[in-house]
């Protein structure tokens, strides 16, 4: 296998020679081993190998992009680089484009690669899954268990025409279980998962048990009345909400005039209990890397501080256009949050539920707003009715409708306990007086 860095450099030089003013190139290889579980038995074991070269060339700010997979042959790489320049010549100039990132020192992030995951045998994944099937059956012998597990390894090299040079080696491992329990026509279901970058963070035990206990807890779901009440977001739902808010704070969306957060930087958009930090440098973080997709060093960024919207997420294009500091959130084509960490509060989640007279507890499910209007109109996928401080029963066919800022301002509690996945902090939150639409 040829050295990825030399392949990337060669493509970069070719593109420069063809007349590109700025160039960046990624060369990458990867391998993925996965196992699919079907009704408690192994259905298939798979192995996949892949490789690609991707070239971006800029002329007067217009971008041409070209990619090729499955070949690192000189002729193919050269053709790919030339094609990118050809495209850049046809693209219209963009005067807002200033430059790709200059080389800057960056710190390696600890724990993004584990040789034990790279060397993982499919039989180990099968054992992990088998253990979880046994757990699930021990909770409920009739449970239907589906799911899968995978271990991935990749290596990439990024170079640009200004001298940026970043090598990256990464691993990840994950396992998910979905449990379905049927009692006549009544169906309860839930899922659970774990994922990690290094084996020491991976906890494959307990996933099948939790998924099945969750499924049992959703038996006997009822419809609810349409009325305003408290909405409590469990850790996964909280994470979904604030990840989507961070996405809406992308400077690309702001500059393109299509985000409901426009004009809101420096303003209160949430309860003062809310502080959200995006940190792509968190050791062993699921979404961590030393540099972003363009080779700019990542750094922690406070997006919301005590309810005030503090920052936009930038890549090199948007930062240069706004004459602001690059925050290192480029995906090399767009902007994306990394590890979203919602700072915990002071009240145990049990107390939040315990002090709720009437409400809905959303264990997990999407509550993302329309990024342009900020309006949320979402189904409660996995929710319970809370009555007089207790989880009363699971709900079905219920929705919430509210503006995202209105929802965030109504938050009156953030839990001190939280779910942690590598790099992510996910507490429980409560918002008062949210309109719940029900099927009664």
């Amino acid at each position, binding site marked *: 296998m040829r050295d990825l860095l030399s392949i990337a450099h060669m493509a970069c030089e070719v593109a420069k020679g063809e007349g590109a003013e700025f160039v960046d190139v990624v060369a990458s290889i990867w391998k993925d081993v996965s196992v699919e579980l079907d009704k408690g038995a192994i259905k298939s074991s798979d192995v996949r190998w892949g490789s690609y070269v991707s070239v971006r060339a800029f002329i007067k700010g217009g971008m041409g992009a070209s990619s090729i997979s499955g070949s690192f042959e000189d002729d193919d790489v050269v053709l790919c680089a030339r094609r990118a320049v050809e495209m850049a010549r046809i693209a219209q100039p963009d005067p807002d484009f200033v430059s790709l990132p200059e080389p800057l020192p960056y710190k390696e992030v600890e724990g993004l690669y584990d040789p034990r995951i790279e060397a993982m045998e499919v039989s180990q994944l*099968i054992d992990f899954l088998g253990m979880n099937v046994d757990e699930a059956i021990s909770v409920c012998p009739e449970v239907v268990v589906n799911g899968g597990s995978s271990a991935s390894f990749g290596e990439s090299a990024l170079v640009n025409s200004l001298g940026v040079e970043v090598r990256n080696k990464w691993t990840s491992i994950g396992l998910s279980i979905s449990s379905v329990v049927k009692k006549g026509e009544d169906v309860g279901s839930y899922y659970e998962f774990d994922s990690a970058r290094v084996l020491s963070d991976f906890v494959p035990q307990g996933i099948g048990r939790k998924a099945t206990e969750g499924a049992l807890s959703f038996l006997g779901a009822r419809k609810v009345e349409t009325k305003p009440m408290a909405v409590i977001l469990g850790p996964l739902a909280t994470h979904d909400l604030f990840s989507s808010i961070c996405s809406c704070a992308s400077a690309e969306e702001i500059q393109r005039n299509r985000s409901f957060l426009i004009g809101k930087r420096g303003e209160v958009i949430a309860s003062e209990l809310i502080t959200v930090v995006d940190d792509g440098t968190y050791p062993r973080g699921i979404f961590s890397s030393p540099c972003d997709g363009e080779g700019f060093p990542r750094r922690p960024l406070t997006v919301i501080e005590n309810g005030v919207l503090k920052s936009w997420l930038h890549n090199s294009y948007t930062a240069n256009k706004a004459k602001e500091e690059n925050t290192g959130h480029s995906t090399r084509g767009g902007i994306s949050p990394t590890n979203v960490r919602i700072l915990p509060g002071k009240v145990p989640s049990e107390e939040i539920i315990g002090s709720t007279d009437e409400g809905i507890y959303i264990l997990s499910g999407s509550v993302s707003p329309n990024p342009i*209007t900020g309006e*949320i109109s*979402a189904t409660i996928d996995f929710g319970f009715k809370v009555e007089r401080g207790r989880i009363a029963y699971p709900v079905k066919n219920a929705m919430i409708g509210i503006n995202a800022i209105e929802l965030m301002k109504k938050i009156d509690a953030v839990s001190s306990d939280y779910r942690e996945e590598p790099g992510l902090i996910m507490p429980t939150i409560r918002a008062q007086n949210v309109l719940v639409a029900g*099927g009664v």
Partner: protein
Amino acid sequence: MDFKEIAQMARDEAKRYGVQFMDIRIREGDWSSISLQDGKADKIGTGKGVGMGIRVLLNGVWGFASSDEVTRERAMDCLKAAVEMAKASLSRVRERIEIAEAEPIEDIYESHYEIDPRSIPLERKKEILSSFEKAALAKMGDKAANTMLWYSDSVTREIVCNTFGTLTDSKYVRVRIGARMTAKEGDIRRSGYEGVGRISGFEVIEGLSAEELSVAAAETALNLLSAKRPPAGKFPVIFHPDISGIFIHEALGHNAEADLVLKGESILEGKLGTKIASDLVTVIDDATMEGEWGFYKYDSEGVPGQRRTIIDKGVLVGFMHSLETAAKFGVKPNGSARAQDHGSRPIVRMSNTFVAPGSSKFEDMVKDIDLGILLRKGQWGYVMCEKGQYTCHAGEAFLIKDGEIRDRLCDVSISGMILETLENVDAISEEFMMEKGGGTCGKDGQGMAVSGGGPYIRVKEVVVGGQELIGGERR
């Protein structure tokens, strides 16, 4: 060695491993795209790729290996790896997987097109996007906030070769164009979207007017500026033909995929031959609709795409099948197994899914409603199959009051329980339309080209995730 020779060689070699079944898929494709925003077509991309996936069924379990290097040597490596993968799984096999026999087919197919999009200079494609943008900007005037237009074309080839003796070689030419226009008034921003996607040539784009695409999107955005927040609760709902495809895709389609039925994740398990919907409802999934986004001649197992009736006058009459699920149900495979790319195993997918037209007139369907919602412009949806609960999001909606279409509404999602909804369908129109855009359906991490459509469909009650409490105080 050409790709077909590699495929046949790998198949012949597989027999030496003693496999029950083996197939190899080789995919190659190239694509180009242009995106235009706020007056500048400043991002132009192109790419090409090849790859192969080899699947073996050995001792009742699947092994799969893929690579994006397609050579004789790599095919041998992948075959060996796939066999090893299958062997590694034997410890946890409960029931040996069998597959249905399929007639061996040898065929070369190329989808119909008049103008090869690759023959059109990028300059011309850029010009069309620019003219569409200009027309939309003229429509929006000083209310224009953002314009986004994009164009893409692709040519993909899939070779399927298996131990039944099948060797199909299919090539598809696709073109797609889309426009999202955002309008602004004060602090209010609203967007409209229109898209067209066809398995066809560049003639589709040449035949398209700005009015049908970007101006229509601009009109939606402008109209939505004055839209109201939707009411919350349970209401009668009419699905417009431009959302009825997404509706039936989510509210029935996924549950009729036989792999989900076998996994115990479909609420239709055990209901074949029983009445699950109103007599008015007939649902069809049709892979043979040439030109539609979900069309295909052969599926990724080399079985011809077919027209499949799922519900006939309210009775569940069939599922969509792969070779594996067909064996389990004791039926003939009906060509529903598709793979996103060479690195994915074929799974059961929908193609072009729709509700058959009825005999009502749209006008009459509206007249009967005292207070309800008309949903338009399907944007997205999803379903929790095992619970039988689906969600759809409309790009635009209208309040129906006293039998008349009244206020425009925005940001409306609805949720329903599948079996209740299907039983509660009380009118279906004779007007019928397939959607223009085509969509991408996600399942098990694989995105697949699908389309849909249908008539106006009226449902007695569905939950609307709104923000206004009818009969209560305005929040």
